[in-house]
């Protein structure tokens, strides 16, 4: 009977993958019902993660200047769009330095940590995540004054982390690392522009078992993203396999004359890919 061995391997994979970001709480037991939408502060995975990330620092509920946009029920658990929206706001107290995206009931709950650089312009962000269980999702923003603010959501989805990656593994390998970077024209001259980055990558969790070998494939995912404009930071991120296959990011970039916008990624096998495009001063 090979089942015990494969279960053992599964735990190894979880551990290896969790270490990529932060080995916080263990994955939720498969048989334990997930915590419900009530009392989100009391959820054990969150309590452990909170201490690991923020110790005893207070976390205030975010005002309406910071919103987490999620579907109530995921249409597809392997591709759940998540957006963080900020209100254009001159208040320095609301200038976001970094943003933690936490999915309580995922095997590895810390999905991403984003840091916004001087060329970001706006801390709005959109990506897509895998969600493994009915769960709370949290966006915790650290503002430049060092305070923490949390926007909270709840989404009904299940099985996203174990969804098989790629319908065609060979085709996925052939396009591995292909990137598309596009920028929308500014709404008015000099205003921050929306950039979209698409990365062809299985971003696999290692949680989908190969039934023939009864082994879990090792996780393979983008672990780091860096976006710069003329060498100045726009956005950087530490990422996890909770980000969906073919990782996708929308973010803002503050234009600065003629300058090269460059996106670089590193995956957990230390494969590096990059793409770039020229942003030209408006009117040229």
């Amino acid at each position, binding site marked *: 009977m090979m089942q015990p061995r494969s279960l053992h391997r599964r735990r190894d994979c979880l551990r290896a993958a969790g270490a990529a970001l932060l080995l916080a709480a263990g994955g939720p037991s498969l*048989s334990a019902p997930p915590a419900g939408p009530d009392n989100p502060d009391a959820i054990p995975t969150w309590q452990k993660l909170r201490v690991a990330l923020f110790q005893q620092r207070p976390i205030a509920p975010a005002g309406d200047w910071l919103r987490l946009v999620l579907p109530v029920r995921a249409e597809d658990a392997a591709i759940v769009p998540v957006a963080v929206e900020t209100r254009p706001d001159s208040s320095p107290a609301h200038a976001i330095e970094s943003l933690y995206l936490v999915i309580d009931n995922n095997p590895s709950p810390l999905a991403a940590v984003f840091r916004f650089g001087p060329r970001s312009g706006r801390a709005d962000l959109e990506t897509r995540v895998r969600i493994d269980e009915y769960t709370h999702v949290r966006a915790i923003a650290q503002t430049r004054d060092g305070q923490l603010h949390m926007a909270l959501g709840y989404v009904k989805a299940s099985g996203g982390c174990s969804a098989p990656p790629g319908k065609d593994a060979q085709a996925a390998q052939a396009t591995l690392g292909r990137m598309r970077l596009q920028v929308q024209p500014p709404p008015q001259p000099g205003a921050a522009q929306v950039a979209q980055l698409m990365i062809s990558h299985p971003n696999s969790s290692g949680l989908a078992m190969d039934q023939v070998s009864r082994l879990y494939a090792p996780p393979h995912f983008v672990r780091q993203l860096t976006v710069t404009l003329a060498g100045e930071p726009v956005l950087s991120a530490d990422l996890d396999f909770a980000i969906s296959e073919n990782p996708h990011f929308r973010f803002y970039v503050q234009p600065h004359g003629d300058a090269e916008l460059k996106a670089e990624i590193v995956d957990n096998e230390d494969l590096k890919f990059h793409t770039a495009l020229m942003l030209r001063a408006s009117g040229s």
Partner: protein
Amino acid sequence: MPHRHAGAHRATHAARGLAAACLVACATALAAHATAPDAPLPVQELRPGVFVHLGAIEDWGPANGGDVANLAFVVGSRCVAVIDTGGTPAIGRALRAAVARATPLPVCYVINTHAHPDHVLGNVAFRGEATRFVASARFARALAARAPSYLNALARDFGLRLAPAELVYPDVAVERSTELDLGQRVLELRAWPTAHTDNDLTVYDPASRTLFASDLLFVQHMPALDGSLRGWVAAMAELQQVPATLVVPGHGPAREDVRAALAEQSTYLDGLLRAVRAAVQGGLTLSQAVDRVGVPDGASWLLAERFHRRNVTAAFAELEWEDDTAPATGARAPGAKP
């Protein structure tokens, strides 16, 4: 044509506008699930030796006891082939009881048309020395990957605890096609490239000219995409070539006007493809596309609110890369200059 009706028959739901085409107008109402353990599942003999149970046109859940997929069995002179086993072990047991009531012959094959829970979780009821389980070569991987989430859903939503060992995996993996001889009746099995899922398999019975289309065809129930929209569109064209005079879809009533049933679904899939492609090319985000791409004109579909947005999501993720011809690393994005 003799129609043998077994079990309760709740006529609640006429097939809107399709009654003439629909073999059994009240088919959708035959989804009554067993009230006593192992009470035979209601089935109808649509063609001699071809028995069909029609699941409820609903989402897989406790409200319908998980009885939402169409199930069937075909009787030869030597033995029986069961096609899909239902969304819980209890449905599988009730189907086994329905087989036993229809024929004394043994079940030699259980065919799984794809690895979705409403079609496979009754497998355990048929496990035995004489029975071989048959599915697409891609089935086992798909079921293994999803098994934890299916078992979780059974526990969370149905209050049913099922051990992983109670999921039955195939003994016979079909790479492209195979035939199963039931005695004076040979079923033709065909495994498909990724369409509804990546492990779809259809069954054709030339003796009765019945096509068991599995979830490659939905009738009344909105099609649900969990594979490749472009692959599914291509599969529809090939299905039109099958010389069937009766089609049993994965969900919804059986139809004798086979081509029309296929064409209705093609209208939806083709429309979805056009609309999502336009959304991608128009620069919409996934969320915007999900909010804005409506149900294409054509047949009206049940469960649209549950499945259409999901279909847009899956289609968008597939199509946003489709015209990618840019080389890899270091490429400049096309059309990015303002």
